[in-house]
């Protein structure tokens, strides 16, 4: 007789399930994961010390309050008392120290945001923790939401043999499929390569401690499923069958537009902070000539991008995304102007060798729409008599190519996202340190600029800092290293029975409403209600 495994006991009312698709892999260890789906999971499983509030300012989370001293070199956080982890342990300063040590010690994931700045973290007492910086870093608090606190005891219970001495593997293997957090959700089931299922943590400290802004909304999902697929036909099928509440952000616009036809499905555009750029190699012929670059910048057909390739996106007005604090509106945006382009080209040293020149443009194999950008680019450049070779490259190999000035192509199509939500978070990629990474294909290697960036980032006072950001933007505008194609808008489809709190933003284009998700983060249980039909 087969042992009768009871069908899971029917709960009085159907659990509210919220399903979304994501590009895999999802690494729920906050010291490891850094990509879209991982960072979407982290704030639901874990908490940070501070967060960006719906109003867009830094607000308390695990830390109730904080102070700055020592000219911005020391930050002291006072922790909220009585915060219990999923395992039932209280979160103390020691856990914070452990979590930061772990993040820095492993050096993976988002550690790069902290490694250059954080010197030491110490527990002053049970509820006080002190961060000593290596150098002054003005926007540090806007970066802090990327640091998540783990329950040290749980991690230590689950360490396996590994390369970190006494700390074994730092709990890495276990944390890949389990959580040690305090967040509103906890891991229910983690199916590798398939899906992550999280369930509502009823004893979330926001509820138990009765903290405003950290309580579940009405009809908060009981179950959260993050499904690892982006296959358009599959996603579309699931949406139409109401097997999915929200799509991933990788769906081609055509697919989204089709999905919207289904009743009850609506498309939302989450205005992003990143840019789609064509980065030009300023240390490689012929893009090492500023006139040549300007010619290209003026020849590119920006309008076609937003009308035909990426509808519902907006053009860049300057050198950073206009939603970022610290953006300067003073710069005249580049638009297609063939006359100007020809003018610039004539000034270029390469003007009489155009026949011999071939520019290589690389695009990322994982983002098919980039092919069209490349094709458009090629077409536009042909108007100037510049021939272009298009190369499709998988992201991983692209990273390698861009790390080497010799291999780096003349032009690369890349999405650049910000390290922290300020203009500086984008501008810092022009620093020489970023040159050998995928963040900068421009190879500017400009010491003056490096100086300006370091100075700006080290400024604690916000107004002063923003002013310095403005100067940097003007400087870069002159060098003209990048063709700023567009400001991203993350388009998704959602079922209309899901409530999202959004801030509406910007002008309306063809009846489509742009929205900014509050706090640049999706805290599902806190913001999202689902009324399953």
């Amino acid at each position, binding site marked *: 007789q087969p042992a009768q495994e009871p069908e899971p006991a029917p709960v009085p009312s159907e659990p509210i399930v919220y399903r979304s698709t994501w590009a895999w892999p999802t690494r729920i260890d906050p010291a490891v994961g850094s990509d879209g789906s991982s960072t979407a999971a982290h704030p639901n499983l874990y908490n940070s010390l501070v967060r960006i509030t719906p109003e867009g300012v830094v607000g308390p989370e695990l830390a109730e309050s904080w102070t700055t001293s020592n000219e911005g070199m020391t930050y002291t956080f006072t922790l909220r008392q009585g915060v219990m982890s999923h395992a039932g342990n209280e979160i103390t300063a020691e856990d914070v120290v452990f979590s930061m040590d772990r993040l820095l010690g492993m050096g993976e994931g988002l550690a790069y945001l902290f490694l250059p700045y954080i010197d030491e973290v110490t527990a002053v007492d049970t509820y006080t923790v002190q961060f000593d910086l290596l150098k002054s870093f003005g926007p540090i608090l806007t970066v802090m939401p990327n640091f998540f606190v783990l329950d040290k005891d749980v991690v230590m219970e689950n360490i396996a043999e590994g390369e970190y001495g006494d700390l074994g593997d730092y709990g890495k293997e276990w944390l890949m499929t389990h959580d040690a957090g305090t967040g509103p959700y906890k891991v229910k089931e983690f199916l590798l390569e398939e899906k992550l299922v999280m369930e509502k943590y009823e004893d979330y400290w926001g509820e138990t401690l009765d903290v405003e802004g950290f309580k579940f909304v009405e009809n908060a999902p009981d179950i959260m499923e993050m499904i690892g697929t982006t296959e358009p036909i599959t996603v579309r099928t699931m949406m139409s069958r109401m097997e999915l509440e929200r799509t991933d952000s990788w769906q*081609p616009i055509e697919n989204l537009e*089709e999905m919207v036809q289904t009743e009850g499905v609506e498309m939302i555009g989450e205005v992003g902070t990143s840019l789609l750029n064509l980065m030009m190699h300023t240390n490689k012929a012929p893009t090492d000539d500023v006139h040549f670059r300007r010619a290209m910048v003026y020849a590119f057909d920006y309008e076609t991008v937003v009308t035909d390739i990426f509808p519902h996106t907006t053009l860049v007005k300057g050198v950073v995304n206009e939603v970022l604090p610290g953006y300067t509106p003073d710069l005249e945006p580049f638009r297609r102007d063939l006359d100007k382009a020809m003018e610039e080209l004539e000034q270029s040293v390469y003007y009489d060798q155009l026949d011999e020149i071939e520019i290589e443009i690389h695009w990322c*194999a994982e983002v098919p729409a980039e092919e069209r950008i490349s094709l458009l680019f090629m*077409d536009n450049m042909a108007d100037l008599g510049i021939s272009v070779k*298009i190369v499709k490259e998988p992201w991983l190999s692209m990273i390698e190519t861009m790390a080497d000035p010799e291999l780096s192509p003349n032009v690369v199509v890349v999405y650049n996202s910000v390290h922290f939500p300020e203009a500086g978070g984008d501008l810092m990629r022009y620093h020489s340190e970023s040159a050998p990474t995928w963040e900068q294909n421009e190879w500017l290697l400009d010491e003056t600029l490096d100086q300006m960036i370091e100075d700006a980032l080290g400024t604690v006072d916000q107004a002063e800092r923003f002013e310095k950001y403005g100067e940097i933007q003007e400087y870069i505008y002159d060098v003209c290293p990048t063709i700023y194609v567009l400001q991203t808008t993350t388009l998704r489809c959602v079922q209309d029975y899901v409530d999202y709190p959004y801030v509406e933003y910007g002008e309306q284009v063809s009846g489509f409403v742009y929205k900014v998700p509050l706090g640049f983060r999706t805290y599902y249980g806190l913001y999202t209600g689902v009324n399953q039909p």
Partner: protein
Amino acid sequence: MNTELMKERWRRNWYKFSRNPLSILGLAVVLAIILIAIFADFFAPYPEHAFVFVDFKNAKRPPCWQYLCGTDMAGRDILSRIFFGFRYSLVMAVSVLSVATPPGVLLGLVAGYMRDTWVDIAIMRVADVFLSVPSMVLALAVCSMLEPTLYNAMLAVTVMWWPWYTRLVYGAASSIKNEYFVQAAEVTGASTFHILFGEIFPNCLSTIFTKMTLDVGWVILIGSTLSFVGLGAQPPTPDLGTMVSDGSKYIPAQWWISLFPALFIVVIILGFNLLGDGVRDMLAGD
């Protein structure tokens, strides 16, 4: 050889080949594909659409009189791209087979003739290593480690392909080697070279040839599969597999973008398979 006899041979072969109407269909399809591939510039309604071309105003047009198979996301005529795609499919098949076959056959001949010696063991064990995982898996693995280009995909498939010929010829050679005519040549004192190429090889030819015609389809299939997963030909090369793969993201709305290339992949493979079967019928027992 006597021309009359040759003519008779051809007549007989043609009879055997044409007994199955499907073989003729296969031949017709293959001939059409070859012609179209060679004269793609002539047959394609919009030859300039094959590679780099953008016309966003005409993008995503469903099939119509102007664009028989519709246009893709960049406004390129799909039929034109398919016609040029034949070229790549054929180039792939021809180069893979013409590179993989000679060494494969040679090794098979040598190993078969020297059966049960260390030469045989060395050659066949190496071939076995290549045959010890499904060829698709090995091709994927090799491709993934190289830079994804059509050239590298061909290289990977070629590397996968030779052992099949080695094994095929090995089987044939090691049995032909026991035929009396080989022993007669040995008794006469003929050289090993003569025995391998003068006596054994001609008798393996029809087997090899049959496999080659059938293999054209398989190579194209593997090539398009590699392109499909992004390890083969790269855009804007009008490669059928790549077109299916890219277009599949727009199913079902713009179904024609991947459907037509997919359909033509099926047609090519079908054509070569039918032809291959005809060739097999023709050469069988000859």
